[in-house]
């Protein structure tokens, strides 16, 4: 069983890993605020999480892309765009879009909510596995931004006079905000809370 800084009455800096006595509030080495366990961080997690979920709704309701060709104008939401591609036989690309912009964001919302709940209510999943889940969310979160960049690239280059033009829809900004809020939710989470439970079950069950 690992000995933690808190067990020894010390506090570790989350930015530079320097160890200080518990009563110190600011790291002398990197200047970051010191806190042994940021329980208030859960409130921040939930606030950003809620903002992310709320932004995700207009991101799917409003059009992401406006395509104008010689004879027609079309406005596609994320999901409609994917089905449109599937209709023309590009099943691979349609699947990638559905996974990247629907499945992964939804999975992130559930995973962050689960982690936050597991810290305050207790969890059956072992700490190591929950930590891996957290790392995956942190790693994958920023990649959702790819959708916004694709919209930017398409809108910038497909400007072919009367032949075809693509313009971004208002959902792009909602989607970008949703990704940013979800990243902030994951970053606000103090991952050290995941590990506490296994070392101090009595204390935590009393609190929960």
């Amino acid at each position: 069983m690992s000995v933690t800084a808190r067990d020894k009455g010390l506090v570790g800096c989350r930015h530079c890993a320097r160890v200080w006595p518990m009563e110190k509030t600011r790291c002398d080495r990197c200047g970051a605020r010191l806190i042994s366990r940021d329980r208030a961080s859960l409130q921040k997690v939930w606030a950003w999480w809620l903002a992310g979920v709320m932004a995700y709704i207009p991101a799917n309701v409003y059009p992401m892309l406006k395509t104008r060709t010689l004879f027609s104008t079309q406005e596609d939401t994320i999901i409609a765009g994917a089905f449109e591609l599937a209709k023309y036989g590009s099943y691979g690309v349609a699947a990638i879009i559905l996974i990247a912009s629907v499945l992964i964001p939804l999975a992130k919302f559930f995973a962050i909510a689960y982690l936050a709940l597991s810290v305050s209510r207790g969890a059956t999943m072992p700490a190591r596995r929950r930590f891996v889940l957290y790392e995956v969310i942190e790693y994958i979160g920023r990649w959702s931004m790819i959708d916004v960049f694709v919209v930017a690239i398409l809108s910038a280059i497909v400007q072919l006079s009367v032949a075809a033009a693509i313009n971004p829809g208002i959902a792009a900004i909602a989607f970008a905000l949703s990704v940013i809020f979800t990243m902030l939710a994951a970053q606000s989470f103090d991952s050290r809370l995941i590990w506490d439970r296994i070392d101090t079950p009595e204390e935590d069950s009393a609190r929960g």
Partner: protein
Amino acid sequence: MLSGQRNVARVIASSSHCDLPGHDTSSQNPKNNMAGICSAGHCCCRANPYLAIMETPTPPLDELIACPHCDALYHVGTIKKGERAKCERCHAKLIAPRKAAGAHIIALALASVVLVVAALFLPFIGISRLGFSNQATILEIAWAFSGGPMLVLSLATLGLIVGLPLMRLLLTLYTLIPLVRDRPPWPGAARAFRLSEQLKPWSMAEIFVIGCAVSLVKLGDLARIELGPAFFMFAVLVVLLVIQDTFMDRWSVWKALEK
């Protein structure tokens, strides 16, 4: 006492470390303490060769490291270049010094700055269809959202793909140049380095390059796409950033800044 043969780690006080009979606390047997395992082979004695799990807090605090991800506390032994120390509990990489890392990082960062700045003004991607053609630089791509209320998104996009990567490079150079020359750090270097680390998840050059690939696939059937010089510069930039990151040992930088 578990002490590696190469003196890479020390457990401070291990009186209660292993109470099982046959535990070789003297660690005189080089065959065993190479791997940091006591001669009896108890699983509880499997020590990390570079980081010793703390038993009692006697050493000075600056010889300790607390894992930022799980708060496990270790006493840092001597870690040679090329070796890496991972957290026993969450497996996060904590310390991994490399030979001449500073010089490598500075060289890579300088090259990256040149690539980013030059790529801004060259065509990134082009398209042609039915006799019409168009091409765009990175600035024009970011500007795609500029119509109406989405101007903010244009600025954010520009920041995420160019601004923040460039800023991180400059902050890294500001932190490391004096350290590599064995001079005292420039004012605010600690703050600069911390900011650079905090900005890491927000620097999205590599995501933009992959986004380009996705756009290619999406447009593949509809039009002919040409990748411009800026695209290839960005692709090289992404590789340089990854290499740079493997050279970066946060622990060594913080140690050097503290002196």
